[in-house]
């Protein structure tokens, strides 16, 4: 949970399977195929950060889930839109880097769209011997950085301040 004073809003957070099962696969020339699972970590991050950012957050796993919307101010639907990484084999750049982009869509309790906010995150980690470990650490760093940006940018982006 972020260490902040929660905003006085009650929200519904939609964490669908697209986010909680997110996996990035990529073939990099001269390297093995990469498969990076970000679903659990993204789910955990968004749930904790949104849970601490607002007065209350009810989590549902599907847009079609029936739920009592009395007292709800906002519905938030996050999507992990893009993920990129770099883990150079040679050269002076000895860092693995990860970058990701979330899109947070907000709706009122009748389902009418309100706003969309783009949240990015960047992480890097020094490569010693373990390249996979460095990419993993950089990706964790990118998620944490996105968490910082959710706290600092999302309320303003949704006109809640």
């Amino acid at each position, binding site marked *: 949970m*972020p*260490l902040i004073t929660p905003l006085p809003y009650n929200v519904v957070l939609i964490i669908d399977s697209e986010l909680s099962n997110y996996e990035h696969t990529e073939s990099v020339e001269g390297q093995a195929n990469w498969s990076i699972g970000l679903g659990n970590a993204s789910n955990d991050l968004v749930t904790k950060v949104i849970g601490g950012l607002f007065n209350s957050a009810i989590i549902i796993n599907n847009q079609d889930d029936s739920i009592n919307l009395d007292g709800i101010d906002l519905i938030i639907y996050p999507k992990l839109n893009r993920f990129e990484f770099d883990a150079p084999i040679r050269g002076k750049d000895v860092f693995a880097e990860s970058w990701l982009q979330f899109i947070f869509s907000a709706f009122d309790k009748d389902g009418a769209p309100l706003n969309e906010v783009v949240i990015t995150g960047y992480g*890097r980690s020094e490569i*010693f011997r373990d390249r996979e470990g460095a990419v993993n650490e950089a990706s964790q760093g990118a998620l*944490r*950085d996105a*968490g*910082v*940006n959710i*706290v600092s940018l999302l309320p303003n982006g949704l006109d809640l301040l």
Partner: protein
Amino acid sequence: MRLKSLVLLVILSVIAGCGITARVEPFMEPGSNFQLNQGESVVILGRKHQASFQTESTLIDCIASNLASGVNSISIHSTKSFEDALFPYFEPSTAPLTTVEFAILLENELVFREIENTGVRYIVWLDGSTDRTDSGGTISCAAGPGGAGCVGLAWWEDDARYDATVWDITTQDSAGTIYVDYTGRSMIPALITPIPLVVRTQNAACTGLSTQLTSFFSQY
């Protein structure tokens, strides 16, 4: 006989060229009390910044491990759990970069109260990094039907420069600082077989900082 002496002379001068130059400057603020009461602990934090240098996590782990072991061991709080509890104030994009910024952060009531909840009494704030400052030389290797071998000399110089500031949470002020600067020169002489003579500069800085920090805390 002459050839043997010459080879010995070369080996000795190569070994003499390797080594570490150390400079350590500990400073304890007058009247500082480094006493840890029951349930209180120390956390080691490093400078974090994505766009420029950041203090290596390996150094933080090394110092934490050294302080937590030995005869004068002290209670160390996990850096990761401290950063999690204080999220998002110690992330690379938000962490204080100077001791002045750090003092301002401690004025935040939420942050201060959470630090108290963790039981952390002292924060050791590390600022610095280990950098390659110079390198040179060449090694040539060749292989043929009669065998293979290398000839030459390669060398490099690392500089480990760190400031460790110890913050007392109860007084919200610096209790002391330690400045260390270790310069290490490593070499790989090759006469048929390359022999790496590697100086671990960051490890030396870790030992130096750990020794000084232990002496701060073991006085009381």
